């Protein structure tokens, strides 16, 4: 099942080769990296258009690049934005429980949609999940939803049910689940 988390979109930054999108999840505000991604229409595009600012949507997030995982003695369920730049996309922490592990992230990225460049009334564009073929990941349950954790550069063992805190140098916004917009 597609990992997703309900978020209010509180800010959509300029599109300078990427876009910074400010989310609010259960009263926690933090920035995410909406980089250009391969779409099913064979061009690259970001996920978030300006018209989504102010909307609530099921968003697909991936904690990626340098990922640090700390085992927790007790379960925790929170998102902790980076203290020095909460509205940036760097070094946010996510505490929750590992729900599943995947050798091929492409298999869990079905029905992820990108809306930049189209109007609200037009049809949506799908993310080309093949970009994530062979990328190892975990699904972390947090704050009433789930996010992906990129494990491609992570060597240690993780198991389903582990309570962990994850800090990622970049939090990517991969797209949105269309059906619930």
């Amino acid at each position: 099942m597609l990992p997703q988390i309900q978020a209010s979109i509180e800010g959509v930054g300029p599109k300078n080769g990427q876009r910074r999108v400010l989310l609010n999840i259960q009263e926690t505000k933090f920035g995410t990296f909406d980089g250009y991604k391969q779409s099913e229409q064979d061009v690259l595009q970001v996920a978030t258009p300006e018209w989504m600012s102010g909307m609530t949507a099921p968003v697909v997030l991936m904690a990626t690049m340098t990922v640090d995982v700390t085992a927790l003695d007790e379960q925790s369920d929170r998102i902790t934005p980076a203290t020095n730049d909460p509205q940036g996309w760097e070094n946010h922490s996510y505490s929750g429980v590992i729900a599943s592990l995947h050798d091929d992230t492409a298999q869990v990225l079905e029905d992820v949609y990108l809306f930049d460049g189209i109007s609200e009334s037009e049809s949506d564009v799908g993310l080309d999940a093949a970009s994530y073929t062979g990328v190892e990941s975990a699904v972390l349950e947090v704050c009433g939803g789930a996010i992906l954790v990129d494990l491609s550069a992570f060597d240690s063992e993780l198991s389903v049910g582990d309570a962990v805190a994850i800090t990622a140098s970049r939090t990517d916004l991969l797209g949105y689940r269309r059906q619930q917009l």
Partner: protein
Amino acid sequence: MDQADVQRMLGMLENKNQNPLLSDDLEANTMIKVVESNGDLSDTRSVVQKSDDIPGLDNDVVWVENGVPGDDGTGWQHIDDKHTSDIVNQYDSIENSRDVENLLNDAIRNPNRVTTTNDGKAVFIYEVEAGERPVTVYVGSNGFTQTMYPQSIGT
């Protein structure tokens, strides 16, 4: 092109042999194209004359300016501020900011693939190391380099 631009152009051409980011065959005509494309020579760090027509570009010149740091910034200072750490951690062969700028130059000069975005940018895709995700360089249609970062991109 004003007198100050002419002086800057002459200075860059005179010193191109000492600057590894400028190729030996850089010509005045290339620098003039940067100015005609609304580039700022006083802020320009490197210029590449492409030999082929590049999809997404209005002409065949790509340049890098110092730009603006920060999350919503652009150009070299943005890359160094917001992406150098990830690039250094991602690739064993890249150790510092200077390596990242050389990587940017290499990616523009010799990309493995060039594609476009839905809003008309050129994207240079460069395989840095086997088995790792590539870096992607985003260039506005006028040739101005906006940013570079590692990204999973389909073939």
